[in-house]
C-alpha cells in the first residue's frame, strides 16, 4: 500500500490488540469522535473499530445521526462516536450541526478526522477548522487505494509536518492502517504525543479583532480550549453561539446549542438507520 508507514504492508491489516465491544459503552477510558467530509469512510472505520454494522453508502448524506460504539485496545477502553459528514463547521444544516456541536462541546479526548486522499484540498478545509477548535486531532488519510489507482500520491509525513498533528494513511475498507491509527490515538490521549496544530493564518483585520476578544473569553471560560474559534464565531455573528454565551450555558452541558435533540433521537436512531 502506498504511503503505509508500517514496516511491512501485510502487518497493516492485523489488529492484534483490538477487541470490538459493539454497543457496550459503559465505563470507557477515552472518547473518540470520527469527523470528516461526507463519504470519506467514517462509518466504515467506525464499523471496523466497534464491530457494529452501521450502514455505509457511496453518497454524501448517508449518515445523518450520530452512532456510538466501543472497543478495547492495549487495555484501554474507548467509546467511539461516528458523526454525520460535514464540509465545514461554519454553515450548518441539521446533520452538520450534530457534528459541530459534538466536536465543540462533546469533550472528545481525540477527534479523528477522516479525509479522502483523492480530494485533499477540499478535505483540508475541514481539518483546518477542526484544528482551530481542538489540538487533540489525528488525521486518518483514507482511501489510499483509490488514490493509488487514480495515480495520486500523498506524502503523509509531509502532511503531518504541515498540519502539526499525526497523519495515518489508511484503507479503512480493508482494515489497513487501523493498528497504526489506534496506536497513534493512544499516544495522543495518554499524553505521550503532543501536537502543534497549525492555526489558520487569518486576514490581519480579523486577527486583530480576534485578539481583542480573546482575553474576555479566556477569563470567562478558563476550561475551554477553543477560545480563538469562539471569538471567530462571535465576529461572524453566529446567533447560536451568542445565545449560548448570553444564557451562560457554554461551559456546562455537553451540547448547549441543541439541548434536547439527542435524547429524543437515540432510541430510533438505533433501530432505524436503514
Amino acid at each position, binding site marked *: 500500500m502506498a504511503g503505509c508507514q508500517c514496516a511491512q504492508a501485510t502487518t497493516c491489516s492485523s489488529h492484534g490488540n483490538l477487541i470490538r465491544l459493539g454497543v457496550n459503552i459503559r465505563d470507557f477510558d477515552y472518547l473518540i469522535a470520527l469527523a470528516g467530509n461526507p463519504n470519506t469512510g467514517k462509518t466504515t472505520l467506525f464499523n471496523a473499530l466497534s464491530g457494529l454494522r452501521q450502514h455505509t453508502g457511496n453518497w454524501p448524506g448517508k449518515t445523518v445521526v450520530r452512532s456510538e460504539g466501543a472497543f478495547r485496545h492495549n487495555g484501554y477502553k474507548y467509546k467511539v462516536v461516528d458523526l454525520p459528514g460535514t464540509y465545514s463547521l461554519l454553515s450548518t*444544516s441539521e446533520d452538520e450541526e450534530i457534528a459541530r456541536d459534538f466536536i465543540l462541546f462533546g469533550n472528545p479526548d481525540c477527534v479523528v478526522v477522516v479525509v479522502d486522499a483523492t480530494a485533499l484540498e477540499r478535505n483540508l478545509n475541514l481539518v483546518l477548522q477542526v484544528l482551530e477548535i481542538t489540538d487533540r486531532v489525528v488525521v486518518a488519510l483514507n482511501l489510499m487505494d483509490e488514490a493509488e489507482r487514480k495515480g495520486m500520491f500523498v506524502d503523509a509525513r509531509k502532511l503531518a509536518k504541515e498540519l502539526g498533528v499525526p497523519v495515518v494513511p489508511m484503507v479503512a475498507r480493508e482494515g489497513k492502517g487501523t493498528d497504526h491509527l489506534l496506536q497513534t490515538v493512544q499516544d495522543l490521549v495518554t499524553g505521550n504525543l503532543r501536537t502543534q496544530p497549525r492555526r489558520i493564518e487569518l486576514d490581519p483585520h480579523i486577527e486583530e479583532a480576534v485578539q481583542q476578544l480573546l482575553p474576555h473569553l479566556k477569563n470567562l471560560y478558563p476550561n475551554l480550549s477553543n477560545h480563538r474559534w469562539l471569538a471567530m464565531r462571535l465576529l461572524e455573528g453566529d446567533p447560536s453561539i451568542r445565545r449560548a454565551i448570553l444564557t451562560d450555558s457554554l461551559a456546562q452541558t455537553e451540547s448547549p446549542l441543541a439541548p434536547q435533540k439527542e435524547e429524543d433521537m437515540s432510541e430510533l436512531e438505533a433501530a432505524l438507520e436503514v
Partner: protein
Amino acid sequence: MTDAEGRKQHIQNLLQKAERLHQNLDGSFSDRLVSSIYKEATAIARSSVIESGNRRAGWDVYFDRIATHPVTGFPLMFLILAAIFWITIEGANYPSQLIARGLFWFEGWAAGLFFQLGAPPWLTGFLWHGVWRGLAWVVSVMLPPMAIFFPLFTILEDFGYLPRVAFNMDALFRRVGAHGKQALTMAMGFGCNAAGVISTRIIDSPRERLIAIITNNFVPCNGRWPTLIMMATIFIAAPFPAGVGSLVAAASLMAVTLFGVFMTLVVSFGLSKTLLKGTPSVFTLELPPYRKPRILQTLYTSLIDRTIFVLWRAIIMAAPAGAVIWILGNTHIGGLPLSNHIANALDPLGRLIGLDGVVLLAYIIAIPANEIVIPTIIMAYSQASMMIELDSLEALRHLLVDQHGWTIVTAISLMLFSLLHNPCSTTILTIWKETRSAKWTAVATFLPLTIAFIVNFLFVQIVLFFM
C-alpha cells in the same frame, strides 16, 4: 456586586464588543475567513500531494455521461429499477413456494398433534390456523423478495448510483418547488419510510424538508412490497404464461412505483403552492466517484440487518394481530362475531374505494406495521372457514376470488391504497420527533389517507364508467 453579577456584566461587555467588531468588519468576515482557510488548504495540498493524478478519469467519466445524459439518463434509471423488480420476482418465486410448503406442512402436522393430545379445538384454531398461518404467509411472501431486493439495492447504493438519480430528478423537483435531494430520501424510503423521514435531514431548507417528509409515504416501503408483489403476481400476472408473467408482474410494480413518484411530485407541487409556499433554496449535490461495491459484505449486512430486522418486526406484529382478529372473531354480539359487525359497518366505505370492510379492518389493525395487512386479511377471511387448505398461491387465489369475490379491480384498488394510505405508526412517531409539530405530523398522516380515498374512489368510478 456578587460574583454572578460580575460575570453577567462581563458577558454583556464581551457581547457588546463582539457586536461592535462585527459591525466594523462590514459583513466581509465570513468571506475573508473561508478564503484564508482555503488558501491555506491549497498551499498544504500542493506541498504534500506528490503525484496529483486525476480523480475523474477512465470509465467513470463515460459511465457518468450515460447515467446523466439528457437522452439516456432516464431510460437507464427505469431499466435498472425494472431489472431489480424482475430479478426480485423471478428469483423469489420458487423459494417462496418452498418455504410456504414447509411452513404449511408444519401447520398441519402441529394441528394434528394438538388434536391427538386432546387440546381444545379453539386453541388449535387460534394458534395454528390463526397466528401460525398468518406468520407463514408473512415469512414465505416476504422473506425471499426482501432477501433479493435489499442486497441489489444496496449494491447500487454502494456503487454510487443514487446521487446520479438525484441529479437527473432534480429538474422535476425544481419545477414543483422541492429539493433534488428529495430523490435520495425517497430511495431511503424504499427500505423504510421512518428511515426515509430521518434522512431528510440532508435538506437544509425547513420548507423543502417538510415537503420531503410529508411525501416520503408515497414510496412503498418494505412493509408494503409484499402486498404489492402478491397482488402483482396472483392477479395481474396470473393470466399470462409463466415466463411472461414475471415480466408483467415487474411491469406492474414499476407502474405502481412510478405512480408513487408522480403523486410525490403532484403533492410536493400542491404543498409548495399552498401550505408551504416559498422559493427554492440552495441546491448542492456532490457526485462522488463510483466505487466497486463489496458484494459479499453487502449480501451479509442486508440479509442480517434489513431482511431479518424487517421479518422480525412482521413476526412480532403478526402474533398480536392474529390475537386481535381471533378475539374479534370469537366475541359474539347478537349471534354475530364482533369482527363481522365491524367489517359490515366498514363495508360501504370499503366498496366505495374498490375494497371491502375486511380490508379496511385489516388496515386499521395493521397501523403499527404494514407488513401484516395481507396476513390479517387472510386470517379474517378464513376465520369463517378455518379449515380450508391454504397452502399455495392457488389456494389463496381461490379464497380471495371464489369466496370473497375479488377481481383484478380489487387487486389494483388494494395496490393503490397500499401505496397511498397513511404512514405506519413508527413513521408517524418519527415524523413527530423530527418536526416536533402536531400540525405537520397530522398533515403527514391524514393528507395521504385522504388522497388514498380520493384516488381509489376515482379509480372505481372510472372502471364503473367503462364497464
